[in-house]
């Protein structure tokens, strides 16, 4: 089974929502990750056949289905909101897509409903109506509805976004196992980079209606090809600092380090620093060093997020292990190992470190 989007454009109210999207998805799961207005939902709707693209083609298994109505396609869709039929029980909700499928006889439907309900942990709730369920159970029902019928294309649009984090993590693990041996195309959209990273499935990064990059999520995290990909896959958000190239060195807010690759002098660059790479103690020699003012310290259970202001103008967030006390208004010195700095040129493309010196940035 394959799903191909070929040069898909969607324009609404004078804005381009999808800009020449080209994708080729095969069996099993693919993650679609992008920020809020990247066009994920629009792409899913086009892939499902809920709204036609302004131009371009959608192909399922080599067949052009662009103009075929969603009613005649073999798709299932799970929404961020919990969408179930309010007047039907959980059982009937799960059974509803099967009743319209000529491939299922009555006893087959019953077996399949119970099977899927068991899988999603709904076996004890089959007689209830959606209004009598918790949010997590409602979404489980919606997912069960989508899973019940084997479909060519299963689309999940941020299905876990409205759940509390414990349920989210549990369902995420369940879903990953469930989609592992799917015979159809499963496209899972999320705005949460951690979700994309934990699924470890082929990942499409979408930004501003364009496919930014396709590849392995962990690989893209470690060696992001562009600033957009790096920003999309970073949670907590990437710190961005302005820099200038001078004679093979990069100067940034008074600190400097060798440029990763020859780059013309005078060009401006953007430095990307992950919060957990910022230290308050000098590490090795050659570390970048910025005196800073402490603005705010957010303490979570196991870590401290320290918000710093460099030179009264640039914000830098440090993710420090452990809980630590800081006084807002005080001063500190931030250190960053230049090997962990991502350097992007004016167009947002990353300047890779020279030759074999490419450091493993996972750390």
């Amino acid at each position, binding site marked *: 089974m394959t799903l191909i989007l070929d040069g898909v454009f969607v324009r609404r109210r004078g804005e381009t929502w999808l800009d020449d999207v080209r994708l080729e998805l095969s069996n099993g799961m693919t993650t679609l990750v992008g920020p809020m207005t990247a066009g994920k939902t629009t792409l899913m*709707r086009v892939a*499902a056949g*809920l709204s036609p693209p302004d131009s371009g083609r959608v192909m399922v298994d080599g067949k052009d289905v662009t103009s075929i109505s*969603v*009613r*005649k396609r073999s*798709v*299932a*869709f799970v*929404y961020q*909101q919990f*969408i179930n*039929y*309010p*007047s*039907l029980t959980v059982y009937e909700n799960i059974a*509803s*897509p099967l009743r*319209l499928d000529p491939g299922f006889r009555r006893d087959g439907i019953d077996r399949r409903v119970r099977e899927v309900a068991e899988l999603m942990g709904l076996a004890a709730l089959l007689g209830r109506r959606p209004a009598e369920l918790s949010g997590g159970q409602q979404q489980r029902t919606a997912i069960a509805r989508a899973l019940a019928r084997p479909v060519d294309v299963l689309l999940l649009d941020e299905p876990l976004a409205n759940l509390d984090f414990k349920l989210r993590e549990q369902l995420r693990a369940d879903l990953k196992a469930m989609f592992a041996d799917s015979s159809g195309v499963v496209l899972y959209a999320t705005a949460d980079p951690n979700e994309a990273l934990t699924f470890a499935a082929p990942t499409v990064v979408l930004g501003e209606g364009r496919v930014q990059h396709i590849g392995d999520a962990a690989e893209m995290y470690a060696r992001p090809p562009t600033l957009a990909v790096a920003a999309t896959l970073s949670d907590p958000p990437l710190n961005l600092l302005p820099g200038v190239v001078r004679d093979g060195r990069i100067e940034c807010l008074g600190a400097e380090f060798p440029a990763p690759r020859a780059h013309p002098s005078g060009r401006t660059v953007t430095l990307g620093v992950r919060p957990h790479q910022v230290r308050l103690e000098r590490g090795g020699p050659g570390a970048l060093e910025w005196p800073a003012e402490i603005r705010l310290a957010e303490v979570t259970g196991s870590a401290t997020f320290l918000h710093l202001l460099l030179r009264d103008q640039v914000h830098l967030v440090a993710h420090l292990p452990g809980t630590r006390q800081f006084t807002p208004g005080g001063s500190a010195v931030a250190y960053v190992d230049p090997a962990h700095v991502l350097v992007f040129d004016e167009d947002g493309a990353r300047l890779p470190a020279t030759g074999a010196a490419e450091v493993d940035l996972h750390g």
Partner: protein
Amino acid sequence: MTEVGEEPRADLKRRNNRAWWLVLPVVVSVAFTAVIPLMTVVNFSVQDVFTPSDRIFVGLEWFRSITRDPEVRSAFVRTLLFSAQVLLLEIPLGVALAVCMPRRGVWVSVALVLVALPLLIPWNVVGTIWQIFARGDIGLGGWAVNHVPGVDFNYTLDSTDAWITVLVMDVWHWTPLVALLAYAGLRSIPEPYFQAAQIDAASAWATFRHIQLPRLRGVLTIAILLRFMDSFMIYTEPFVVTGGGPGNATSFLSILLSKIAVGQFDLGPAGAFSLLYFLFVQILCYVFFTVLTRSGR
């Protein structure tokens, strides 16, 4: 622990009663506009009034005579039948109209204005419009119906024709209210529900039955209550169109009541009549409301 536990209890004892002063204006205005006038009706219903200074206490005699009056009884059955027909016609029609109205685009406002138009016309004007419209000689409606072969339509002579005229007039006048309420209910359904139905290839009927109808329960409860109360107390329009006739064909409870109270000036029986009328509407509304809200759970 005991300290914490005792504190709210002590607080409850020293209750602050000043908030009652805020309720006072409402109590006073309701007393002046509703309770005191109602009490004068109660007063009339248990007395035989000859002149303002000459009155006799008669107990429940008026209640007894009103409930045994054949004219009142037939008007009661007539009004109940009318309300039942109004509900049976207007609720499904209103819902159907709401489902057919556009969900978005420029036509939304056009449809809303068109549908709401009958609601904006004063009741006695509605009566006048239909009095003329339904006439066979100068009314377009009556003229058109009379040109259907085999139909002889005259609402001033024929009881059935008069009944149909009043019923159609009420449907024309009040279906839009049901439609607007239902439309508001339908608009509150998120788009993904309809998409989910599309993906399931659900039929239009299944979409209506399992997505739209469940969402309409609340507004339909209100629509049924409003339309029942209004139609059970209908007065102005039939008074203008038929005056209760021909004979007693469209003589509803309210028309009969005003005849007794204003026409014959029988204040005692009219008072008893009003109280029973009022009580019946209250009880039936309570029953409707209870049944409709309970069945949802």
